[in-house]
């Protein structure tokens, strides 16, 4: 009997303790971090938004952007992001979660390899792994420098730009330095495509958007 009363008393304490914790840890704490973030690093805190030449929010530097049809094929006029298990929709995020020996994965990798080789007019063994494998988040904004290099000729031709100029844009959006050493070198496709769009607009002043 005393144990039951002990439990009830403790449960009352627990409930009050939990409500107080919810106020402090559940509301005051995230609000304080929010305040500090907006004060010292508002750009990062609000999703690293990139703007187009007209100043309108066009993308997040951290989230993949792909213009893809229903079949999943990406628009050939732009640099392609890596395959995505969520069709590059930022309202969700996921990997394929297929095992390293999975037959379905093997199939999709082989098909992807053939498709990329055909699109870029290269041999199958020149297609890098990141071009045919889905990222962990489905929103990976980056590709390998090798995959970017493969796409330069196609994008330059489609946009009416000099391949050397496009290569320069790729270099400008390649992450080197410490984070590349800790992880690996990567090219930000989201930012790169915005830069390509700006360059294409500048090269054809008659074309208005």
């Amino acid at each position, binding site marked *: 009997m005393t144990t039951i009363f002990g439990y009830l008393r403790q449960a009352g304490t627990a409930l009050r303790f939990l409500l107080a914790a919810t106020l402090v840890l*559940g509301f005051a704490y995230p609000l304080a*971090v929010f305040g500090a973030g907006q004060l010292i690093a508002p750009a990062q805190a609000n999703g690293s938004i990139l703007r187009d030449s007209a100043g309108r929010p066009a993308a997040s530097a951290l989230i993949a952007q792909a213009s893809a049809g229903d079949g999943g094929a990406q628009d050939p006029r732009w640099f392609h992001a890596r395959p995505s298990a969520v069709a590059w929709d930022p309202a*969700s995020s996921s990997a394929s979660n297929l*095992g*390293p*020996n999975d037959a379905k994965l093997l199939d999709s990798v082989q098909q992807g390899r053939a498709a990329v080789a055909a699109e870029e007019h290269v041999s199958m063994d020149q297609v*890098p792994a990141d071009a045919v494998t889905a990222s*962990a988040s489905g929103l990976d904004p980056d590709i390998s420098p090798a995959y970017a290099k493969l796409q330069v000729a196609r994008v330059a031709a489609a946009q009416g730009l000099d391949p050397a100029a496009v290569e320069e844009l790729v270099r400008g959006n390649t*992450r080197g330095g410490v984070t590349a050493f800790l992880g690996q070198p990567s090219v930000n496709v989201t930012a790169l*495509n915005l830069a390509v769009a700006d360059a294409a607009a500048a090269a054809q002043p008659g074309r208005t958007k």
Partner: protein
Amino acid sequence: MTFTTLSFLLQAGALLVALAAVHKPLGLYLARVVEGTRAARAERLLYRLTGVDAGTEQTWPVYLRGVLAFSAVSILLVFALQRLQGVIPGTGPLSGVDPWVAMNTAISFVTNTNWQAYAPEATVGIFVQMGLLAVQNFLSAAVGIVVAVALIRGLVRVRTDRLGNFWVDLTRVTYRVLLPLAFVSAVLLVLGGVVQNFWSTDVANQAMGVNQTIPGGPVASQEAIKVLGTNGGGYFNANSAHPFENPNAAVSLFQVFLLLLIPSALPYTFGRLVGDRRQGFTVAAVMGTLWLASTLLTGWAVSSAQGTATAAAGGLGEGFEQRFGPVPAALYAASTTLTSTGAVNAAHDSLPPLAGGMTIINMMLGEVAPGGTGSGLYGLLILSIIAVFIAGLMVGRTPEYLGKKIGPTEMKLAALYILVTPTLVLALAGVTVLLPDAVANAPATGPHQFSEVLYAFTSGANNNGSAFGGITSSGPLLSTLLGLAMLLGRFLPIVLVLALAGSVARQGKIPVSAGTLPTHGPLFGALLLGVTVILTALSYFPALALGPLAEGLIR
């Protein structure tokens, strides 16, 4: 993607150096916090509001009652408010969470597991994330720490039945340790690029014709305590692989540091509280050795890039983020499973078979290297008692640990402790593979399907929370079985630890004699390491052979 050995070794080394540098000041601070007697004004106010008699210490059953009552109330509240999500303002179009998922999630976050049977983006709004789940991230971590502290008190104190006051310990650890650490870490995460706002942003790439709604939310504040408290529940479905949770490889390394931080400082706290720093160093050295060995093995297994699909792709890539690649993924995967964190920056399901196997083995070690906040330390202290007992059998002496006699009662409790998780893992995974309806939730074929099931129950019963994500656990059957694994895997060990603490606290101290086995130094460290590894191997080898070993060695 290539595996850069130099980068891997330098980062592993940097983590060891950084942890070695901070474990002493943090461990010392933790010791002062739990030893202190003066309450701050805000704490006194809290005690008055909650009806806590801060001056009274509790016996082990009362202390345990506090843990259980607090956890039960937490589970009920988190469950009920998830169900009511639809009527809570500010959650947008989301309705109440499905009852099975809500039950599983409530248990998951209160037990420090953070298994996620749901996709957060489509299931839980800001209120549930911030007001319920993140709060449990703090409190479940604090519960683990205070249970470890109670065990230490039991070992230190003589002829008493008092182990401290649960509510006072919980208050101090939460508000004096976790909250300030989380705030500083969260601000640093924002600087690194992690999101912290309360709105989404519509963007339009007019040239490409792409419109997106970029999500927002209090991510950094949740991310900080997710790793610091070895919780692991992601704000987004992709967890720390999502660019908004983990924007670059430097932030990723920082997260690994944070998830190792408190568990590796606690051995110093232990040494300090028992008045013999060598005891703490030996525990820390065993944790560090296991961590290093396992991290190196995981790195090697990842770099092998095994698998038919992996070979067809020309290397690793499936389930990896380009900005990380295999090196940060291996570092993260090892540390997240050696602690009870379970956050991931790559899809574990797609790892090379032996690397996936290493993540399972890491959890099977009982998560003691360095383990969860508090649970890692009390796990290794129980293993120390087992090691002392085995050494005692060899030389035919009554085993003692830190001046306390390890009698039949203590040994029964310790033996039960090490039986709990293997029993849960093997029995529940066995039941699952025998039920066609249950095993259908793991879509893979062959040994990989068994690995997905084994991973799920190893993760649940060890309160890790990571997954081979191919498995779907939102249905009634698996959410219940996993809920059971998490609940029993958390609270049965806590019951046994507190009973043990109560039992040794009643004893007097045996003076050290020539026949006493020293429980510090390399000899005991090696013994403890051996006991830990051999117990794991004996319990789990057959199961491992059917899953990851079969997949990794046969092909």
